[in-house]
């Protein structure tokens, strides 16, 4: 598949920051990759616009020292990722350089490294045989990559149908060894290794059908699962002002979610947040397999001090790797923090190109770009009947905390779950600060989701969710009333209602991400707790004054919080539960 045609060679004509203007005699293509030479450094660039003789190249590195007349070498290729076994546990930059292979303390401009481990060998077991008819994405065999079964597939770029001419026997093979030879009706041969390439901006669509997500992706986060569940293959986003808990929520989900592969795209955020992942994940256990979390994790790190242009590439790199694993029939979860930085990178470039600006100077096509990206997630049936999914959860960092800004608005049109983080809740340290009333999961409207939840969680689950939300809304309403009219100015029932909502807030919604037990609540436990609280909600209590109500409910909150901190169904848990019953019986009117 190597393109042997000669490619254009150009000369630098000018630059502003990382936008380089180039002239070349030969033809170039939009999005073609090129190398800009400075001394013996080669800086990666991408054609982003052509205007008459001027080729506008976005350079992925600092252009310091660049001069007019420097040589630019075009490659004839688009920005691609290298795909194969060995990607799990790696930390890549936005352009898929393996950061662990770069030895120096500081990132040197123009330095690259292999995304895979060229010398590695893998135990290959064929699952297809000679004479089988295959096409792009079909499984030829498998290797074990950490705990997952990594399928070796017909290269995604293969066009048309092929017959397997030969395939190697079960055994250990090098990453780049030929493991199969395919032949098409025209007699053209295609040799297959464990490595293949795919352009990051083009979706991999090698499935037979993409269906509406219907099964819940368990996250262990109560305010998500018990209130606004996200589905496997679904999309969601988390907007919130700084410090409201976007990253903590994403990290928690990445640790706890029921996924085979988790891809963490750190897009324009803090380097220390990556350090946290690769320091802690090797020690933490995957709650489902018991293996180390790092084994299922891939980090794509384009931190805020790394070249801005690679920010956009980083989310596409993450998505393409996810599509590769999805085509193997795996459940992939992508967490992107923060998609606003990617949008800002687009804005910076659009401004340099002097394009007509849209709202807040973002490019006019922002909504389309975001929609297109989110549409690559999904639950798919592969051609062999297996399923694979990509669940995508992005954060948005609205400027000034204003949820009416363009990136939030554009994302709202694409993502199906909306977890709005509230500054007020964060200020009160009510973490996770997900606003229970503003947030939604559109999936709850899907009949197939409802029946899934009825079957897998409980018959009344959806009703319980709705009831809980109603209580929380009512709680807010009576709180407003109390604030206007004063404690004495409202009936006692108002106080009761307010505190019952507070009870749900403190016990269900609030969850300490840093407490070993509280951090993750499996769905069984969530069901138990929600039912318990809804039972309490239905009860009448013998309480005389609003102060009695407050004091009594503080005791209940205290007791239930202790329950949250203790292991589910442990002796300690049972004792606390008995004590809770005693407290309830003290005041309950039967």
């Amino acid at each position, binding site marked *: 598949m190597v393109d042997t045609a000669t490619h254009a060679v150009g000369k630098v004509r000018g630059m502003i920051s990382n936008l380089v203007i180039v002239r070349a005699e030969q033809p170039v293509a939009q999005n073609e990759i090129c190398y800009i030479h400075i001394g013996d450094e080669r800086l990666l660039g991408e054609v982003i616009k052509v205007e008459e003789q001027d080729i506008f190249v976005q350079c992925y590195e600092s252009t310091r020292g660049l001069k007019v007349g420097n040589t630019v070498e075009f490659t004839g290729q688009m920005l691609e990722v290298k795909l194969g076994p060995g990607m799990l546990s790696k930390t890549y930059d936005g352009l898929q350089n393996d950061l662990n292979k*770069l030895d120096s303390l500081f990132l040197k401009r123009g330095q690259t490294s292999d995304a895979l481990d060229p010398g590695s060998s893998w135990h290959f077991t064929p699952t297809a045989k000679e004479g089988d008819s295959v096409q792009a994405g079909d499984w030829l065999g498998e290797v074990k990559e950490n705990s997952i079964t990594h399928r070796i597939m017909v290269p995604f770029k293969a066009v048309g149908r092929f017959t397997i001419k030969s395939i190697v026997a079960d055994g250990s093979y090098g990453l780049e060894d030929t493991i199969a030879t395919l032949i098409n009706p025209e007699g053209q041969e295609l040799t297959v290794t464990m490595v293949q390439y795919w352009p990051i901006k083009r979706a991999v669509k090698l499935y037979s059908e993409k269906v509406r997500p219907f099964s819940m992706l368990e996250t262990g986060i109560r305010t998500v699962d018990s209130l606004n569940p996200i589905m496997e293959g679904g999309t969601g986003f988390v907007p919130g002002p700084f410090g409201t808990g976007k990253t903590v929520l994403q990290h928690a989900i990445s640790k706890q979610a029921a996924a085979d592969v988790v891809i963490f795209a750190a897009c324009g955020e803090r380097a220390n947040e990556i350090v946290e992942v690769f320091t802690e994940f090797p020690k933490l256990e995957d709650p489902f397999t018991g293996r180390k979390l790092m084994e299922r994790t891939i980090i794509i790190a384009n931190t805020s001090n790394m070249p801005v242009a690679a920010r956009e590439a980083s989310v596409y790199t993450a998505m393409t790797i996810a599509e590769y694993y999805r085509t193997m029939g795996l459940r992939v979860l992508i967490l992107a923090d923060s998609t606003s930085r990617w949008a800002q990178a687009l804005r910076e470039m659009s401004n340099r190109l002097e394009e007509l600006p849209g709202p807040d100077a973002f490019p006019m096509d922002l909504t389309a770009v975001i929609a297109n990206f989110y549409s690559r997630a999904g639950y798919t049936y592969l051609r062999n009947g297996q399923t694979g999914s990509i669940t995508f959860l992005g954060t948005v960092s609205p400027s000034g905390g204003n949820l009416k800004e363009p990136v939030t608005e554009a994302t709202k049109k694409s993502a199906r779950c909306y977890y709005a983080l509230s500054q007020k809740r964060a200020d009160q340290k009510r973490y996770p600060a997900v606003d229970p009333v503003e947030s939604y999961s559109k999936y709850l409207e899907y009949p197939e989701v409802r029946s899934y939840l009825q079957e897998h969680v409980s018959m009344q689950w959806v009703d319980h969710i709705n009831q809980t939300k109603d209580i929380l809304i009512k709680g807010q309403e009576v709180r407003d009333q109390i604030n206007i009219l004063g404690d*004495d100015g409202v009936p006692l029932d108002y106080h009761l209602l307010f505190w019952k909502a507070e009870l749900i807030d403190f016990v269900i919604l609030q969850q300490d991400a840093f407490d070993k037990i509280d951090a993750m609540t499996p769905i069984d436990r969530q069901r138990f707790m929600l039912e318990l609280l809804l039972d309490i909600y239905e009860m009448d209590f013998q309480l005389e004054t609003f102060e009695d109500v407050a004091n009594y409910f503080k005791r209940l909150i205290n007791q239930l919080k*202790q329950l949250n901190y203790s292991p589910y169904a442990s002796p300690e848990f049972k004792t606390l539960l008995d004590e809770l019953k005693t407290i309830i019986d003290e005041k309950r009117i039967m």
Partner: protein
Amino acid sequence: MQYKAFQPIFSKITRINKATCELQSRRASYDELAIVNGRLAQVVKIMGDQVTLQVFSGTDGIPTNAEVVFTGKAPVLQVSDELCGRFFNAYGDPIDNGPEVVGEERVIGGPSVNPTKRKQPSELLATGIGGIDLNNTLVTGQKIPFFADPEQPYNQIMADVALRAKADRIILGGIGLTNDDYLFYKNVFENAGALDRIVSFINTTEDPSIERLLIPDMALTAAEYFAVDKNEKVLVLLTDLTLYCDALSIVSNNMDQIASKDNMPASLYSDLARHYEKAVQFPDGGSITIIAVTTLSGGDITHAIPDNTGYITEGQLFLRRNTDIGATVVDPFRSLSRLKQLVIGKKTREDHPQVMNASVRLYADAMNAKTKLENGFDLSDYDQRCLEFAKEYAKHLLSIDVNIEIETMLDICWDLFAKYFSIEELSVKKELINTYWKGKKREVKADSKADRSD
């Protein structure tokens, strides 16, 4: 000046505005420094043979036939131990009448640390200030700004923090400091006998504002020298980054870039992150901690400067005037240290996280009670107790005048808890209550049953 004129001289300046000038040249390289009639300037745009130079000290008086010399290199700093105890301007030239520094030439604004070569920060950085150590504990390798209104004593607080933090080296980056504040820092450091630990890069209000753009890079290049080459714990103070951003906006407006929110360049986030991300913990023990100041206008943190800053830094320390106690406090609500989880309850006493949360929650209840009072409602007994608690809490812990050990802070909290509240009102883990609770084991309220803790 560290830049020698060794290149031919050009003139024919074709365009001049406040911050930049444009001339014809085919020799320029991107980011390189030039000298225009003796003033330092940097190449910010090249289009064919048209080169745009940003003149740091402003373009006033530059003639169209000015002498222009290209130096062939980006801005540099000579680094060596000779930097210690010295004061420099934005170009790295001495302003203390001392000799030129002899050392290794380093290009400023160098590349980023490979994230995989970082170590997770884990070393407590104590300041003695309750609003910081108790509620927003700092960690070596962290980057955090003070958000302060201009009238607040942020420079005094920075100086206190700098001297109390057990840093091997302190780098002061003064960006648009008033001359008085510059002399204040100089005096404080001198009096503390700390001068030899300190390197200062100072741009005062008397200096041209565009020169300020060089200060953070200069300070951080020096910091990297001590942290990487010498494995030292370096603390960098940058005050005031709002003035840095203002200088950025002047330049970008002069280059006809489309301004985004609040007249700031669209690249503001990256421009700030580039500096803040220099904060790092290296595996070999060296570290760079950045404590900065972002002044607010009218307390507005939704303005683009504090807003972008908050998205970049690992928290923020919000200074506020507390009228109840007549002192400046570190506001417990909007302040945040994102790295505190790495040390509290681990490097500090086990009860730290829960004590912190409980006291902030009770303080929040006090603020609600205050609102009630202001709206003319009666206060409940609980409200009253919260208000009393809040006053003492602010005075003994939140006020920036406090200078005590963390354990003492925790003990004070438990004292106040016992004085004003019942166990149930705290909602703290049982094990901790068993160890630290200083009050009666029984509920004080007449209508409640005995507490079951035993």
